[in-house]
C-alpha cells in the first residue's frame, strides 16, 4: 500500500493504489464487521430491555400498586405477591452505603491525594485500593459473613442483628468503598494547580484550600463516582446472598422508613429477582413477577447511572 515515489514505476504504483482505493472492499468489510460488533451489542441490550418490559406487563400492567405493596409469596398467583420487602431492603442498603462509604471513601481520597507523602506506604495503600476494586463481589459477602454474622470479630453480630439489612448495607458499603476512593481521587487530581496556589498564596491553610477550592471544584466528579457506586450497590446480589438475605418466606413487612426493622431478617430487590427467576422453572408465573421487579430495579439503577453520565459529560464539556 505504500507508494514509493523513488521507484521507477511510481506513477503506475500511485495509479494502482488509487484504483485499489476506489474499490476497497476489504476496508469496507472491515468497517462493516466493526459496526456489526457494536450493533450486536446494542441489539442484545435492546432485546434485553424489550424482553423484560414485555414479560413484566402481567404484573406491572394489571396490578402495579398491589405489586409494590405486596410481599414474598410461594405462589405467583397469590394476590399479595409483591416487592415491598425488597424495596425496604434496597432503600436502606442505599442509605447505609451513603452514610458509611461516602464519607470514609471521600475522606480516604482526600488524604491520599492531598496529604499523604509520596512514599512506599502510600503507594502500597493505593495499589491495595485498586486491587480491592477488582475483588469479586461474592468475596465481600464472605467478609460480611465472617465479620457481621458469625461474631468472629468483637461480637459485631449482636449489633447488626446477624443476617439483617444493616449487615447487608455494611457489606455493600465495604464493597463500594474502593470505587468511591478511586473516582474521588481522580476528581481531586483534575483540580487545576493554579486554584490551589491562588488560595495558598493569600494565606489559606491546607484544609481551607481543600474545603473552599478543591472540594467544590471536584464535587461533580465525586458526585458522579458516588452515583455510580450507589447504583452498583443497589444492583448487587451475591454479597447479600452470602450474608443471608431471605429469598423464601419473610414474615415481616416493615414500612419503608421503619428503622427498627434494620436488624431483622431482610431481603432486597436483586434477591427478590433472583428468587423469582429461579422459581420460574417450577411456577411460570414468576417470570412476570421477576421481570416486573427488574423494571423497578432498573428504573432506579439506570436513573442513577444516567444522572452520573450526564453530569460527567456536562462538566467535561464545560471545562474542556
Amino acid at each position, binding site marked *: 500500500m505504500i507508494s514509493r515515489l523513488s521507484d521507477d514505476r511510481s506513477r503506475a504504483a500511485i495509479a494502482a493504489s488509487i484504483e485499489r482505493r476506489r474499490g*476497497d472492499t476489504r476496508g469496507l468489510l472491515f468497517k462493516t464487521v466493526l459496526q456489526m460488533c457494536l450493533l450486536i451489542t446494542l441489539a442484545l441490550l435492546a432485546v434485553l430491555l424489550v424482553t423484560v418490559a414485555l414479560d413484566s406487563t402481567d404484573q406491572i400492567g394489571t396490578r402495579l400498586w398491589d405489586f409494590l405493596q405486596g410481599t414474598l409469596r410461594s405462589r405467583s398467583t397469590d394476590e399479595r405477591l409483591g416487592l415491598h420487602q425488597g424495596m425496604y431492603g434496597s432503600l436502606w442498603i442505599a442509605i447505609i452505603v451513603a452514610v458509611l462509604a461516602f464519607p470514609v471513601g471521600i475522606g480516604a481520597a482526600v488524604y491520599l491525594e492531598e496529604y499523604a507523602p509520596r512514599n512506599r506506604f502510600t503507594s502500597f495503600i493505593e495499589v491495595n485500593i485498586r486491587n480491592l476494586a477488582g475483588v469479586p463481589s*461474592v468475596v465481600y459477602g464472605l*467478609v460480611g459473613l465472617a465479620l457481621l454474622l458469625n461474631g468472629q470479630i468483637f461480637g459485631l453480630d449482636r449489633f447488626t442483628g446477624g443476617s439483617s439489612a444493616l449487615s447487608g448495607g455494611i457489606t455493600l458499603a465495604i464493597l463500594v468503598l474502593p470505587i468511591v476512593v478511586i473516582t474521588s481521587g481522580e476528581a481531586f487530581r483534575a483540580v487545576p494547580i493554579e486554584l490551589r496556589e491562588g488560595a495558598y498564596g493569600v494565606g489559606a491553610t491546607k484544609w481551607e484550600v481543600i474545603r473552599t477550592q478543591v472540594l467544590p471544584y471536584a464535587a461533580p466528579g465525586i458526585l458522579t463516582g458516588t452515583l455510580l457506586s450507589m447504583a452498583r450497590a443497589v444492583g448487587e446480589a451475591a454479597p447479600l*446472598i452470602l450474608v443471608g438475605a431471605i429469598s423464601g418466606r419473610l414474615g415481616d413487612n416493615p414500612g419503608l422508613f421503619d428503622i427498627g426493622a434494620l436488624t431483622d431478617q431482610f431481603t432486597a430487590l436483586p434477591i427478590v429477582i433472583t428468587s423469582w427467576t429461579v422459581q420460574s422453572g417450577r411456577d411460570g408465573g414468576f417470570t412476570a413477577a421477576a421481570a416486573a421487579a427488574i423494571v423497578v430495579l432498573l428504573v432506579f439503577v439506570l436513573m442513577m447511572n444516567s444522572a452520573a453520565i450526564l453530569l460527567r459529560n456536562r462538566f467535561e464539556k464545560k471545562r474542556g
Partner: protein
Amino acid sequence: MTDTSVVHPDQLTVDQLQIAPSRRYREVIIRYTLVVAALVSVLVSTLIVWSLLREAWTFITGVVWADTWGQRGWFPRRGLYDIPTIVVASLIVTGIAMVVAGPLGLGAAVYLSEYANRRVRSWLKPALEILAGIPSVVLGFFALTWIAPNIVGHIGRTTFLVLGAVILLGYAAISAGLARTKIKQYREGTADPSARIGAVASIAMLVVVFVLAGAWTLNVWLEFVPNNAGSLAAAGIGVGILTIPLVASISEDAMAAVPDSLREASAGLGARKMTTASSVVLPAAISGIVAAFIVAVSRAIGETMVVFMAGGAADAARFADSPMEGGLTMTAAMASLASGTDSVVGEGLTFQSLYFVGLLLFLITLSLNIIASRFVSKVREAY
C-alpha cells in the same frame, strides 16, 4: 548595595509569624481524621485476607481428602467438595464469556476509536455505559429466560461443530499473526533478546491451548446433548454480555493513548484506514488490549449471579465437561452453599468450604488484576 547593614525599624518576631492556635489545631484534627479514613481501606483488605485464610485453613486440614479423592462432583450434603468440578465449570463459563465479549468488545472499541465521528460517539458511549450499569441479576434473568431457549436452545450438534471450528480457526489466525510479528521482530533484531523465552513460551502456550480446545470441542461434539434450559453455555453468554463494555472501554482507552502522529504517519504513507487500524494502532495498543482481556477474564470468573440463576444447577452439580450441561462455577457454588436450606450454619465443613473457594477465587482474580495493571502501566510508559 548588598552591604546595607541596617536593622530596619519594623522588625517581626517568630510569634508574629504564626496562625491562630484554633486554626492550627483544626488542621491537625482534620489530618488525623482523614488518616483514619485511609486506614479503613487497609483494614478492609486485611479483614478480607484474614477471614478467608482462617476458615479456609480449617477446610484444608479438615476435609478427609482420601475419602473423596478421585470422585468428581460438587455435593456438599454428601461431603463431596471436588474443587476441579467447580474450577472446570468456571473455566467453561469464562471461556464462553470471552468468546462473546472479546471480539464484540474489541470490535466496538476499534470502531469507536478509529471510525466513529464525534456525534456518533456521543450516542454510542453512553449506550455502552448503560449496558455496563445493568445489574448482573438482570443478565441472569435474561440468560435463563431468553438466551437459553432462543440461542443455546437452537444450537444443535452441527451448529456446535461449525461454531467451534470458526472460533478455533479465528483463534489460530490471531495467534499466527502474533507469532509472525514476534518472529519478524527477531529477524530485524528489534526485540529485546531477554523477551525471547517469554515469546517462545507464549507461542507454545497458544499451541497447547489450541490443541486442548480442539480436542475438547470434538469430545463435546461426540457426546452432544441439546439443552434449552439453564446451562453453562447460557450463563457464559450472559456473563459475556456483561463484560463487553469492560473490554470495549479499556481497549478504547488504550487506543486513545496511541498518539495521532502515528496514525498520521501511516496515512501519510498512503495506508488505508483499515491498515492503519489493524497494523499500526492495534499493535501499538496491544498491551492495553491484553489488559482489557485479562480484566474481563477476572470479572467473568468472579461473576456470581448470572451463573447461579442460569447455570442450570441448583445446589449440587455433577462434573460438567460440556457447555450444554448445567453446572456450578466456583462463585455459583458459593452462592448456592449460602442460600441452600442447610445454608451457612450447616453441619460439617459447608461453611469452611465456602471460604476455601472464596480464597481460591480471591487469589485467582488478584493475580489476574496485578498482571493486568502491569500491562496497563506498559501503555503509560510507552506514551
